[in-house]
């Protein structure tokens, strides 16, 4: 099977820094992956990672500023989903986010979103400025 034939859909969209708009894109992506035989755990992880990443972009990246947009690019194939989410914020250094599982941070409500994205996605990377995250999930195979 060639990579071109594998393609389910691809789109790019720019949304305002608004939670409802973020959820609409999330649902659009989840709608696309319905035609890919991801198992339940994969779908759970993808939804969770999208939620965390889009909320991060809207809230922490753009600071809910209505004049700032979030650009989302998504490509779904029969084997994987790849999503890039870019905000207009100053970016951050992922290494500087405190480890939420360290005993002293366990009760602090931060850093867990990135940790969950890492755990559930096949790949997660940030650009050098730290205002764009790329999430990749490859389909888990039974054997």
């Amino acid at each position, binding site marked *: 099977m060639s990579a071109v034939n594998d393609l389910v859909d691809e789109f790019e969209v720019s949304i305002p820094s608004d*939670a409802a708009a973020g959820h609409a894109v999330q649902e659009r992506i989840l709608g696309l992956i319905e035609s890919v035989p991801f198992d339940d*755990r994969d779908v*759970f992880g993808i939804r*969770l990672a999208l939620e965390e990443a889009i909320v991060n972009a809207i809230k922490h990246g753009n600071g809910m500023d209505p004049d700032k947009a979030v650009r989302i690019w998504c490509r779904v194939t029969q084997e994987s989903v790849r999503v890039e989410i870019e905000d207009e914020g100053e970016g951050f250094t992922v290494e500087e986010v405190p480890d939420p*599982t360290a005993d002293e941070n366990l009760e602090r*409500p931060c850093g*867990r*979103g990135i*940790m*969950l994205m890492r755990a559930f996605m096949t790949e997660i990377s940030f650009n050098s400025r730290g205002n764009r995250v790329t999430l990749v999930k490859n389909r888990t195979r039974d054997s």
Partner: protein
Amino acid sequence: MAGPRRIDVEEVNGVTIAKFTDKKILDETNIQLIGNQLFSLVDEDRRQKIVLDFSNVEYLSSAALGKLITLDKKVKAIGGKLRFCTIRADILEVFKITRLDKLFTIKETQEKALEGF
């Protein structure tokens, strides 16, 4: 209580059982509402023994985890106890990944959560 009810509350032998009514605890507004309703159990009602029942919950984000951490602090501050129960495997994994399974007391069933409270 302000806003639509997001948790069902019942009292069993002096223990408060609070059951989430939502399948997805993701949306920020929803999480605020749920947080406020949970906090009022402690801040207003001064309930000291609380079991949180997750049987309806299919999705939970890190923002929701933040509310649970705050609730745990509030309950401990008044000398109370908080236990979680009936958490499905995916959500339990979220607790394990974030090591919050070490912070919270998690039981398999509501019966087990009520034991020895």
